[in-house]
């Protein structure tokens, strides 16, 4: 079974395994669009998926990982990617942060990916024909901002949604990186609560803990060690950032607050508060918005139980 070495994202695994099975019979996969927040494993799953796409030579197809923000136009794409790496080749092309692709390339893809019942498509650009063979070439996309992808183009893609990791999943990901250190359950629980449901944060913390254990020669990591580490590195409860903590403090002191008032008190723009800081507090149920912003009982409890911050 593919993806056995990746933790969590069970519904993603199911879907991708289904498409891999289809690939083994048809040699083609739909155009997949991996959608989810940062650190949920989109790129890792795309790599693993691609590793299962075996070419006619019995080996894994080459995997081209493109940074979409550096693609500036159709001509440049054909010149630098298509001609040298795609034309007549078996390959998987992965566009990371696909919402940053330029409009003219999206328009070209709109035509190219309109395959209906055929596995080949020829696209005419500046009097030259570019042929795509989707039995040889697979195209994957990933984005954190699916709303910024042109809707008709999105319709050509099959969306694979990534969920936040549970605390248990993150605990598993975390523990895999330590073979010679034992973790108390409550220590692991304490650390996992600071990962914000995000595997990338989890991996950052792995490094911190490795340094911490090496410098202090720790073989058994306890809750006290976890608290000590968090205090040393200024890791706040539930992995809150200092700005999020400040927002909660303001709301606790003021009772209710408008967005404008929060912006004035934190020195941040209204957009920055909405886009970067409120979402996590809302998702964790520490604050709510009903016309104005206010702190919930859960938010108050968090602050009361962590007075030292």
């Amino acid at each position, binding site marked *: 079974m593919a993806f056995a070495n990746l933790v969590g994202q069970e519904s993603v695994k199911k879907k991708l395994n289904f498409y891999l099975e289809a690939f083994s019979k048809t040699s083609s996969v739909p155009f997949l669009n991996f959608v989810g927040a940062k650190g949920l494993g989109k790129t890792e799953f795309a790599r693993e998926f691609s590793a299962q796409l075996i070419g006619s030579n019995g080996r894994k197809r080459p995997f081209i990982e493109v940074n979409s923000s*550096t693609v500036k136009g159709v*001509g440049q794409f054909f010149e630098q990617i298509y001609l040298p790496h795609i034309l007549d080749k078996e390959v998987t092309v992965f566009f990371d942060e696909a919402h940053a692709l330029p409009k003219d390339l999206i328009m070209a893809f709109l035509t190219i990916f309109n395959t209906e019942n055929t596995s080949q498509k020829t696209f005419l650009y500046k009097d030259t024909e570019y042929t795509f063979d989707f039995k040889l070439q697979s195209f994957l996309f990933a984005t954190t901002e699916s709303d910024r992808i042109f809707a008709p183009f999105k319709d050509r893609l099959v969306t694979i949604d990534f969920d936040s990791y549970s605390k248990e999943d993150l605990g598993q990901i975390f523990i895999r990186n330590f073979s010679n250190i034992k973790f108390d359950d409550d220590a692991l629980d304490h650390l996992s609560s600071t990962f914000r449901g995000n595997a990338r944060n989890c991996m950052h913390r792995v490094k911190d803990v490795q340094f911490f254990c090496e410098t202090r020669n720790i073989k058994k990591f306890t809750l006290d060690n976890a608290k000590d580490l968090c205090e040393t590195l200024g890791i706040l409860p539930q992995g809150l950032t200092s700005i999020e903590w400040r927002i909660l403090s303001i709301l606790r002191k003021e009772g209710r607050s408008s967005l404008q008032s929060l912006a004035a008190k934190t020195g941040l723009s209204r957009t920055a508060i909405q886009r970067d800081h409120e979402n996590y507090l809302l998702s964790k149920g520490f604050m709510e918005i009903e016309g104005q912003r206010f702190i919930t009982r859960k938010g108050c409890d968090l602050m009361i139980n962590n007075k030292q911050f």
Partner: protein
Amino acid sequence: MNEEIKRGRGRPKGSTAPNTLDIPAEDLVTLIREKGITTVKVARTWFSELDKPVEPSNMDEKIEFKIS
């Protein structure tokens, strides 16, 4: 050795051959097709004089990608 001092921009010091050639456009197009050339570097001024809007070229910017 040519002791003549190069004056400003243009032809390289000591060069006697002209920088440009006259080729029938049709021959050039045939050659470009035969060789599979997809982009051609042309002088911006010459291009503007053809009444074409000159767009900043992005062909030289490198796409970041890695193959594994």
